[in-house]
């Protein structure tokens, strides 16, 4: 639903608002700045219709189907169920009882903006030159050739949200990518995906700027910094809204001056850019929620939400996803109160619990991170099935990105982002065997011709070889 509204807004913004200027009697074209100036060039590849048959399926939205079939046509799932009647022209992939899940989604990645090797020339993820840099866009830093992307694909990850770092109060726009080889980032951009804006609570911004003796050096400084930015954004939005509303009485010379920083913040206030907020502590989450109400915007998710379990009912009530690790802790004071049951408890409280990696090693095995979080919950007596647990990296992750109508579950009409696993996906011994994005086979563990490798690897890894 939100996605639909977003698309209408985008479409409207692209339309010229034609109005009549009463003073001159001539027509003046008044327009808002283009909201999609770096559009996705991803095109759905054509592929033959095929079916995966006799699979055990974790649908990604909480169900488990045994001995079921999936039919995939034109990038979409067109049928799912037991003993589907398949035409003779349909290629059949015999799963033989192996497990199938939706493509895994990582809502917090810095691949491409902190590429490997992690040398200073690849440090493109954090514009720490001012505490509010809403004007920067992560996609303008992404190196599509980062050799880390292909390893995440081999781990079954088909969609990634690439975010700026957390050194700033407001770090800039994130971008949602399809995890496919491309020379340009535009070729990876998920068509129609909403933009996100990275914000950061707590220790990082106050450390970065406090050490430079500039605001913020405290948590109250953090809050003052965000609020100042939202006040400016509200004024900026008002100036454009008035300009558009009064277009009939204005001449083009009245066009407000474009301000990239405020344009992004204003996009949040308009409801078409989603807030992804790095925020560890429950008390700070509550402050951020109050601030969102003060200025009239919504928060999509709190990331690295180590204390989400303390605020689980609040997050559930506000409809904000908690984006969490399975077990990371102790690297900062704000990450000291970790419990392994965090994800399970947020889920238990009916909240939107999401796993994330923030790490190019863990992104390769989000299925294992889900397994640990499920096991911790079951250890305390919560009854969490694999079908429920996998949601943390599929449907719930898609909700956090505003893409739940397209990805994150296997259902008729959804994108055919599919992983076939060698063993149960929550087993440490399991690997992604085949990975499809929009019905196109992008990775095959047992076929080196379907194992994309970055230009970077050529001459480093032997020809035809892979980096397991």
């Amino acid at each position, binding site marked *: 639903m939100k996605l639909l509204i977003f698309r209408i807004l985008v479409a409207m913004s692209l339309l010229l608002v034609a109005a009549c200027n009463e003073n001159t009697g001539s027509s003046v074209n008044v327009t808002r700045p283009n909201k999609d100036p770096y559009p996705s060039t991803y095109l759905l590849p054509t592929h033959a219709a095929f079916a995966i048959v006799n699979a055990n399926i974790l649908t990604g939205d909480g169900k488990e189907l045994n001995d079921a079939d999936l039919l995939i046509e034109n990038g979409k799932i067109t049928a799912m169920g037991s003993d589907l009647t398949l035409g003779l022209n349909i290629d059949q992939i015999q799963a033989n009882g192996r497990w199938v899940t939706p493509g895994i989604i990582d809502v917090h990645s810095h691949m491409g903006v902190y590429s*490997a*090797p*992690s*040398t200073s020339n690849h440090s493109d993820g954090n514009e720490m030159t001012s505490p509010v840099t809403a004007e920067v866009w992560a996609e303008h830093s992404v190196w599509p050739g980062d*050799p*880390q992307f292909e*390893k995440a694909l081999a781990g079954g990850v088909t969609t990634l949200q690439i975010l700026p770092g957390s050194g700033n109060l407001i770090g800039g726009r994130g971008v949602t990518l399809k995890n496919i080889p491309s020379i340009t980032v535009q070729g990876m951009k998920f068509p129609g995906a909403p933009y996100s804006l990275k914000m950061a609570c707590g*220790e990082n911004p106050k450390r970065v700027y406090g050490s430079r003796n500039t605001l913020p050096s405290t948590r109250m400084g953090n809050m003052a910094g965000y609020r100042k930015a939202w006040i400016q954004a509200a004024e900026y939005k008002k100036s454009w809204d008035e300009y558009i509303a009064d277009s009939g009485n204005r001449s083009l010379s009245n066009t407000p001056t474009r301000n990239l920083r405020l344009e992004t913040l204003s996009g949040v206030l308009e409801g078409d850019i989603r807030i992804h907020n790095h925020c560890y502590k429950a008390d700070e989450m509550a402050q951020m929620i109050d601030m969102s109400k003060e200025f009239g915007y919504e928060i999509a998710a709190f990331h690295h939400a180590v204390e989400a*379990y*303390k605020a*689980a*009912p609040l997050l559930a009530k506000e409809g904000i996803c908690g984006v969490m690790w399975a*077990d*990371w*802790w*102790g*690297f*900062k*004071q704000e990450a*000291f*109160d*970790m*419990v*392994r*049951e965090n994800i399970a*408890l947020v889920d*238990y*409280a009916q909240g939107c619990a999401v796993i994330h990696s923030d*790490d*190019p*090693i*863990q992104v*390769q*095995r989000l299925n*294992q991170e889900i*397994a*640990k979080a*499920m*096991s*911790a919950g*079951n*250890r*305390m*007596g*919560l*009854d969490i099935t694999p079908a429920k647990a996998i949601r943390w990296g599929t449907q719930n992750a898609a909700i956090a990105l505003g893409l739940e109508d397209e990805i994150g579950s296997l259902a008729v009409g959804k994108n055919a982002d599919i992983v076939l696993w060698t063993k149960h996906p*929550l*087993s*440490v*011994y*399991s*690997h992604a065997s085949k990975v499809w994005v929009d019905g196109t086979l992008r990775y095959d563990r047992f076929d080196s011709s379907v194992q994309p490798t970055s230009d*970077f*690897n050529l001459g*480093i*890894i032997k020809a035809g070889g892979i*980096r*397991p």
Partner: protein
Amino acid sequence: MRYLQVIIILSIVSIPATANSLLIKSVDIYSSSGVEKNTNVLIENGQITEIGQRISHTADREIDGTGKSITAGLFNASTHIGAVEVSAIGATVDSYSENDSVTASLKIAEAFNPNSTLIPHNRTHGLTHALIVPDSATHLFSGQVGLIQLGANPRVVHDSLAVAVDFSEYGFELSGNSRAAALVELRQALDDAKDFSRNRKSALAGDHRDYELSYADLAALEPVVNGTKPLLVRTNRASDIKNILSVAREFQLKLILSSVLEGWMVADEIAAAGVPVIMDPINNLPRAYESLGARLDNAKLMSDAGVDLIFTGMGRSESHNAYLVRQSAGNAVANGLNKSAAIAAMTKNPATLFRASVSGDIIVDEVADLVMWSGDPLELTSEAELVIIEGKIIPMESRALQLRDRYFERLMQ
């Protein structure tokens, strides 16, 4: 109702620590020598006294081990446990020194804090021992390596098992940004230590030549150059590994390698030199130019070549979540390593090499240092249900568990 169920489950694991004998029935034992399915283990006064299909004695307490498994207590061979509480708070971090006059002589074990919250957290998940390895901050030499035991009364088992050297890109940066300069510096220090050892008296009296390193640092290196204490060298690039192997030959050093992300490329040479390696099997990314060859089957390929493996891990959580060495080991198996070899790499191999007071094995007449897992010992859906460290059952208590229970109670209201 659900809360009741939770209470019951928690109570199952609270086996009284006072029981003098414990029989675990119908359990699978995973050790370095393989799997023994469906057997029984009798533990009396902290010792394993019988293993087998038939047990002659009864016990104060019996546990049904059906579907469960036992391994020796886990070791992690590269941590800062007890020398770090919160990584970003310098006052709690004693794993390195910025004092450039303290290098090889730094003993991380002297900073060990037995009250660290990292200890209960890790032991409740099956970690019973850990190597604590200092990091370099000013010099190639990082300091001396200790071994700790994470029991109810955590202690330093050895305060100086080896002297650590950082011969990675980071160490080179400390050494004037050149591998070649780092090699000169390393050889010079070893030569100086030999010279100091031969002329100790006159040197200490001030009647001998000057050295770059302090007397304390040279004294710390003395057992290394005399071949009694290993040099533990962190290094990654294949050519760097070869250089270190040749320095070790030249000075007749005992050597342990660590990290070795490109170890598979020179596995035969490492094996021929009889050098054990400490490694995290999870690392497969070209995160640095010294590790362009990193790959997930590094452990398997080195094991195939005959290299003795000792594990650390996982990834960046090697201290706070040192118990996740088990996940790294599971991934090594997923990528081809033999399961017994993976178990050995976090039990028997480190216990033997680091002269622990436990065997790292499940053997009759040895002190019980073991974990009972709810399923396959490497599966992440298996939990540690019973942890015995040097003969004593440890309570399943930690700060994280207290936090969980406090907030779950509130959620239930």
